[in-house]
Every structure is written in C-alpha cells, then in structure tokens.
C-alpha cells in the first residue's frame, strides 16, 4: 500500500485544504477591515489587512484562555473519574440492570442542551454555584460522561478475561484489578475520551453562557461577547478570538492524535 505515496500525499493535502477552507476564511475575516467586510465579490486574501482584531484580542482575551484551559482540564478529570469505573463495571462486572443503565446513558445524550442548561440553572442558583468555574466543569462533563462510558466499556470488553482472572487468582480485588491492570491497558481509550471531553468543554458555549455568564472567570467562548455589542458587532475581533482560541487546542490535537483510538474499539470489532 505504499505504492506511489506522493500521489496519496498530494490528494491528502488537497482534501485537507478543501476541508480547512472555512478555517482559512475565518482567518481572512479576522484580518479584514470593517469597510471591506461586505465587499462584493470578497477578497480571497486580505489585501488591506488590519491587525485591530488581534491586538484587541491579545490585549483582552488571554485570561479567558486560562479559564478555558482550567475548565477543559477539569472536565477531563471529572469525566475520567466518573466514566472509567462505571464502564469497567458495565464491561466486566455484570451488574444487574447493566443493560438498562447503558440504555439510560444513551437516552441521557438525547436531551437537547438547552433543556439541560435551563435545568442546571435552577439547580445552580439553589446551590449557589452559578458563575463559578466548578459549576461549568460539572455542566461540561455532562456532555462527555455518557460518551466516555460508551468508549471505555467498548474497549474494556475486549480485554481478555484471562488477564483479569490471573489478577484475581493473585488475590487482587476489583479495585486493584481496575487500577493496576484495566486502566493501564486502556490507555488509548483514555486518550480518546480525554481528547473528546477536552474539545467539547473547550468549545462549549451554551453552558458557559447560561451558567457562567456573570462570573469574572469566563471561558474564551464567552470572551467573544465582548465584541458583540447591542448594536454593533466587531467581526474581525470575533474571528480573531476564534483563531487565537483554536491554536492551543489544535496543538493538543496534533500531539494527541497519534495515541488516540488505536484499537479503542478493538473489543467491539473482535467480538
């Protein structure tokens, strides 16, 4: 399959370029002056670029990037802590009603986000955690946890029982087996779930808007609002915010892609 790799590389580059064209366009708009925004036909390249968007963003938005990072990492941690043990149980420990639980987890993902957000608002106001970073982490994890359980359990099902039986014979209890054997073997699914939950939390807007809109620590997605005034929107700044916000996540993506999912659904496929 390595015949003529250059042909495939060229095609790959072309396909990637087509796919990323809107991202390029986003960068283009971020460098466009206000009066050129609606030029018809539009400029393929920003012929009269302005750095106004970027100077504004770098001056104002960097703290929000920090908050987004905290929220993202927190969501990853919480998602892993919640979903990995549950998946282990569903995959290997045969709880009674496990099938029902899996189904419920599927249904949980069917609830539209706006309904969740409104429900959370009421809970958060009562608990006093509105406009907090912790509250947002909790809310963002609801996007990722059911999916996490799904991925982990699919993978864990593929772990050979001999491995676990051997541990049991050696005297390990379920928890020991979980931490010393199951989790290390599940490293790829761990990376996959971490990646998904981080990205979902990073780009979340609805929960942030409903539940953390008033706080001092806002994620970057809300930082965009600084450029959406009541009568006027500064599109070059909005797009510049998006570009700046995408860079850390893109770097993460490129690094993690190697580890993601190699064999994550191996269990499902082999069975």
């Amino acid at each position, binding site marked *: 399959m390595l015949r003529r790799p250059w042909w495939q590389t060229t095609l790959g580059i072309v396909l990637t370029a087509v796919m990323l064209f809107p991202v390029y366009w986003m960068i283009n708009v971020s460098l466009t002056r*206000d*009066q*050129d*925004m*609606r*030029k*018809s036909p539009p400029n393929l390249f920003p012929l009269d670029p302005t750095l106004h968007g970027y100077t504004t963003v770098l001056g*104002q938005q960097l703290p929000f990037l920090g908050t987004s990072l905290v929220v993202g990492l927190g969501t990853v941690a*919480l998602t892993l*802590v*919640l979903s990995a*043990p549950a998946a282990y149980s569903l995959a290997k420990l045969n709880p009674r009603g496990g099938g029902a639980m899996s189904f419920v987890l599927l249904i949980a993902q069917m609830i539209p986000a706006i309904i969740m957000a*409104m429900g959370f*608002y*009421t*809970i958060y*106001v*009562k*608990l*006093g*955690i*509105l*406009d*907090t*970073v*912790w*509250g947002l*982490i*909790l809310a963002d994890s609801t996007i990722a946890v059911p999916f996490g359980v799904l991925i982990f359990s699919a993978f864990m099902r593929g772990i050979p029982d001999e491995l676990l039986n051997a541990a049991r014979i050696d005297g390990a*209890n*379920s*928890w020991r087996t979980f931490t010393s054997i199951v989790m290390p073997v599940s490293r790829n699914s761990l990376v996959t779930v971490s990646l998904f939950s981080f990205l979902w939390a990073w780009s979340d807007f609805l929960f942030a*808007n409903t539940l953390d*809109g*008033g*706080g*001092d*620590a806002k994620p970057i997605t809300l930082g965009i*609002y*600084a*450029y*959406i*005034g*009541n*009568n*006027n*929107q*500064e*599109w070059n700044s909005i797009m510049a915010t998006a570009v700046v916000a995408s860079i850390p996540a893109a770097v993460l993506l490129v690094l993690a892609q190697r580890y993601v999912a190699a064999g994550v659904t191996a269990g499902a496929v082999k069975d």
Partner: protein
Amino acid sequence: MRTKTFLRITAVAAAAACTVAGLSGCSASSTGSNSNAAKGTYTFWDPYPQYDASSAWGKLVAKCGTDAGVTVKRTGYDTSDLTNKALLAGQQGKSPDVLLVDNPVVSTLAKSGILTDTGTNGLSTGSIAKNILGAGVIDGKTYGVPIGANTLALYYNPKVLQKAGVDVSSVKDWASLTAALAKVKASGGKGITFSGINTEEGSFQFLPWFWGSGAELTKLDSSKAEAALDLWKGWIDKGYAPNSVIQNTQTTSWQEFQSGDFAFGENGTWQKDSAKQMNAGVITIPAEDGGAAPVPTGGEFFTIPVQKDTARYAVTKKIVSCLSSGDNVVTTDNTLNYITASTSLQDKQLAADPSLKTWVEAVQAAKARTGDNLGVRYPVISEQLWTAVQKAESGSASPSAALQAAQQTVASKTSN
C-alpha cells in the same frame, strides 16, 4: 477480606459521590453569584458586553455606586439573552438590583411581575419625553426610565448619488425614492440596503415603512400594510435592494453600506459616528405620500426588579437617577451614540453638536413599539410581522397572503 473489599469500594463510591456533591456544595465562590445577601453589593445587568470595567461606561456605573454608598457589580450580557436570564433569575428570586433592557421587552418583564413600578421604587420620570417613556408605561404604571433613545433614518452616500445624478433633496416620498434607486442602479451603483431578517431587528427596520403607509400594528392585513410590503418586495425584485437583506442584521447591512457601493442604507443613530467617517449624509425616512415617516424608538430602559428586601430600592433609585439624568446621561448617550430622553437635555446635546439636528427631530417624532397599549401583544404581532416580511421577501408567499396569514395567527394567539 470481604468487608475490606466492600468498605474500600464503598469508600471509592462515596468519595466520588462526595466529589460531585462537594463540588456543588462547597464552592460558594466569590467570583460573583447573584446573591443579594451581601449588603453593600448591588448587581447591575446591562446589554453592553462590549464595555468592560475599564471603559467609560463601566467606570461611570462604579462611580454612581460609590456615590450611593455601595459597590456595584456590573455584568454585560448579550441583549437577546437578557430577557430570559432576567426571567430565570426572577423565578429563583435572584433578580439583579438594576436591569437595563431593550425597550420592547419592558412590557414582557412587567407582565411577568418581576419589575417594580415608579410608585414602588420612587423613580421620577417628569422630565422625560412622553413618546420615549411610552415603552415603559403599561396600564398607566411606569416600569422604567430610558437611558436614551435612538431611531432609524436613511443614510446616503453622496458619491454614489452624484454619479447617478440624483439630488438627495428630491427624495421626499416613496415614489421619488424608488425613482432615485432606479437611477442609481442604471448608473452601476447599488440601491438601498436594510435589515429584513426574521428577528425583532427586521420588524424594527420595517416599521417606518409600515407606519409610513398609514398602517396600524393592530391590523396587519390592511391594504396599507400590503403597500409597504410591496415596496420592499418590489425593490428586491427589481434589484434595487440586494437579496442579502433577507438575512441581514443591522450590523451586516451597515457593513454593506460601508463598502461604498450603496446609495442608501437604513440604519440607526448609533452609526452616526461611523457615517461621519465615510462622509455619509442622513435624511429622515420618507412616508408614502411625503413627510417624515413615524419611526420606532430604540434604546434601553433602566428597570428596577422586585427584591425581597424592599429597603434596597432607595439605594437602587439613587444609582439609577445618577446614571439617567444630568451630565452623566448626556455623556453616556454621546458614547452610545444615542439621543437623550429629556427635551432639555436634547437641547444640550444639540448645542454641543449641531449635526445631530436630523436625529433629534427624528427621535422627537418617534413612537414606542409597545405603545398604543399594545404591551405584550407587541411581541406576538412583531413575530408575525417579520415572518410575513420574510415570506414576501423570499418569494414563498405574496405580500397579501403573507400578511393575511400573519393577522390570522395574531388573532388566534391573542384571543387565548
């Protein structure tokens, strides 16, 4: 071993559960919950997220707070979110102390019961022009005071008009406007841009034409209303207005005007500085048969939501009065590019900047959308109006059919 295992596992489960619960319970963070329990901190919500704490507006709000002896915690939200946030907060009894909202929303919030009227909160409204205050008056009670007013007019690009050989003073009514647009198109320019989107902005932009034909919001399917919609549809069909108006917000419409190809752009007071930069002029929107068309009032209102601790109203009143009167409000309105709401202050603004003449006159002739006792019927009517306009603009229904369907829906919804 059995007990140990069991205990260990329970411990894990308990720890996990406690983490979840603890996250909920223990983080009564000081990064700004809307709790009004802390005396001396008053919450302030406004629809200006573009102004942060270091902006002139942010500093003014803080100053009025300290002048009243308290700290003000201000948050800017997107204006379209603010109604729902206010309702959700009000439901939980966590309304902010001061709520600055877009004027057509005041009647909705008042009806929901989360706002206090001037009888309760003690705000004085005597100096405010009646037509601007109108949006805040429901059933004889006043629920807010305006921060300022803005409205719509017709900006024009002198270069494009000159190239087309159109004299702007000849644009006096619909016929002459359409004729001017024809000339502009013939000379290679683009005619007029406005916002005909299916949101409140679309209704806002359509109203001067709607009212300019003599139509009333209580009767959407009158022949006069049809005439107004025919006007817009005719422009789109003949190419005098671009297809993108169907999707334009007022901002994107302004961006189109800024590109320099359009002769006319319908937009608001808030663009006057930007207009000056591109040397655009402004005229009032003409009515069908001449004269200035009635235009809707824009601009936000200060409202004071209901609080459990009624003693707070005295301080809140001070904060609001500080922001809405005197030199403070003139400065704010100049920043926002609004016209002040009281006649005497309007004279002050005019004296400082005579180019505001057209705007001041327009604002003085404007009327509130929720006025004429429409109150909460206005949102229902407005939604049907922008739906009808969209149907006609996009060609999926004729203007008369669209308006008839709109009126029927309004009738069935408001009769419930």
